[in-house]
């Protein structure tokens, strides 16, 4: 039970970073990125390739993953940043699928590595220093907790800067920032770079935690799971999206736990049921509380100490 909880919270931490990164793009900048999983996928693959095929240490792999995913975010946004929101959304979905099809059809460093075989045996940092898997679970949880805390304080700082306020202005429409001399296109590209880099970090942490990655881990459905976290928690609120990550991942992983206790329902049925619950939950949140469990704090002008909402 305690091992399951450590596992669950490690997963929540990794997906929490991913939710924070989507929140920078959607919650703050209003970018409807339906291909967000592409950064997670790139991060996982780049780190695995750097560590396994190039023999780099874990930290270099994670750093490389972060940089690569950030660059891809910029690359993805550069030509498309002027598109209408709905068109942009579909183009991100397509871009993510193209990258997945690329990995699905590309072998890396040998006939049975990469492609649909995936990459197995991804080294876990300092694995040999721990005797039992349970102790190592705690250690990796600590790594993820540090990364999550770092990401949280980073996005909190970033969105409180003038840059962050400019992003929020973009979200409400291009006219005002343009009138103030802000380059909306460049701001969108930069938001995609920041969000992409954080997504890459989460992907790298996932790859070394799971020790195995394959293209079918990065289906468009996973993007939706991140969206569910952001919408449920409250877009534009960093703490909110973390709460969303806890609720959604707990639901998502509940079947693993429930299957052992509820004998009369088979795992396939439970898996379908949990997706129905998550899908309806999101539709319900959009209908009845579109601002999420923890709405974004509104800054009130004229009130005293107005700025310390976040």
């Amino acid at each position, binding site marked *: 039970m305690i091992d399951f909880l450590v596992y669950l919270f490690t997963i929540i931490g990794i997906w929490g970073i991913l939710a924070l990164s989507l929140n920078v793009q959607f919650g703050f900048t209003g970018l409807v990125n339906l291909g967000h999983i592409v950064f997670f996928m790139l991060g996982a693959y780049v780190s695995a390739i750097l560590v396994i095929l190039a023999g780099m240490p874990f930290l270099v792999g994670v750093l490389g993953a972060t940089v690569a995913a950030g660059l891809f975010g910029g690359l993805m946004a550069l030509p498309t940043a002027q598109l209408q929101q*709905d068109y942009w*959304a579909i183009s991100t979905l397509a871009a993510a699928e193209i990258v997945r*099809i690329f990995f*699905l059809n590309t072998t890396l460093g040998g006939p049975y590595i990469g492609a649909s075989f995936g990459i197995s045996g991804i080294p876990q940092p300092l694995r040999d220093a721990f005797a039992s898997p349970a102790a190592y679970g705690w250690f990796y949880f600590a790594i993820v907790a540090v990364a999550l805390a770092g990401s949280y304080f980073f996005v909190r700082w970033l969105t409180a800067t003038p840059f962050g306020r400019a992003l929020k202005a973009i979200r409400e429409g291009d006219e005002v920032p343009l009138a103030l001399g802000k380059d909306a296109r460049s701001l969108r590209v930069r938001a995609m770079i920041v969000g992409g880099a954080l997504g890459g970090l989460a992907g790298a942490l996932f790859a070394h935690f799971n020790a195995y990655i394959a293209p079918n881990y990065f289906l468009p459905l996973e993007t*939706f799971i991140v969206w*569910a976290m952001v919408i449920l928690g409250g877009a534009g609120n960093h703490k909110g999206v973390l709460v969303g990550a806890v609720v959604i991942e707990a639901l998502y992983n509940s079947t693993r736990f429930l299957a052992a206790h509820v004998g009369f329902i088979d795992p396939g049925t439970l898996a379908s049921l949990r*997706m129905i619950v998550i899908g*309806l939950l999101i*539709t319900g949140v959009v209908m009845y509380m579109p601002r999420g469990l923890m709405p974004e704090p509104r800054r009130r002008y004229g009130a005293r100490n107005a700025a310390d909402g976040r």
Partner: protein
Amino acid sequence: MVGRRNRHRVRGARDDIRTPGIAVTQVLVDSLLRTAQVSLLSVGLTLVYSLLRFPNFAHVEFAVVGGYVALLFSATLGLPLLPSIVLAVLIAGACGVLMDRAVFARLRDTTPILMMIASFGLGIAMRATVRLAWGASPRSYGLGLQSPVHFLDATITPVQIWILVVAAASMLGFYLLLNFTRLGIAMRATADNAGLASSSGIYTERVIGTVWFLGAAFAGLGGVLIGLDTQLFPRMGFGIIIPVFAAAILGGIGNPYGAVAGALVIGLAENVGLAINWQPLLGLFGHTGGPAYIPTNWRAAIPFSILILVLLVRPQGLFGERKS
């Protein structure tokens, strides 16, 4: 991707295309079949978009509903296939109306982004419901082995001929409806300017309901046709979402004729792209060696790439006019 793979097995003629004498007619037949399936879905998507201005990500799930309900009536309840299909199409249409009344009617005044996210959630729930009821493994209508007809170097089964005929007839019927009935005129007026249409005495909510019914019914029919051609599986809707969106955008989103034309472009690009020997082109870049074909595994990347290219070069679509 299970379905895609099976598709090739069912067609059987795929390997022939790879031989030096390319059967042009076979490529054409394959393209038209794909066009038939994609266009039935993209027309409904674009219609709903033209009225409510949001891309309905749950739209492709009506195809899943239609396909599986037809299976329910024919295989499980023992009805003949034809009435089963009619019932399935009507039920898919009713699901569209239900979805609008239950969810989107209450979101009319919100932003397109919220409606889009709600549609994504509904799509997931619908797909999971089908999986809950029928399981994840592929199903078929059990038509048995089809003896193919040979026609100008191409191989086509009788069912595939029916698919082409039914899709063409639906599109013709839709054209007549849109142009020669009061309902069609009301639909076009509402799409053009809902406020003006409403003040001219058109009951726009009823028009919206009709459009949901038509769009979902077309998608349901598309799902049945996909099931007849290959197999049914819960992810068949989401698997075709990019070609469907690409077709709608290619034709200028909101334009039903454009959606059909866009489906034709997608159908041709997927099949012709694979049948072409790219060696002469690659030769220009110093590539040597034998004939160079795009591997079949990469087929799915073709509509994705077209979609992104179109969005970059002509976001208003091939036939659309840029709106200010």
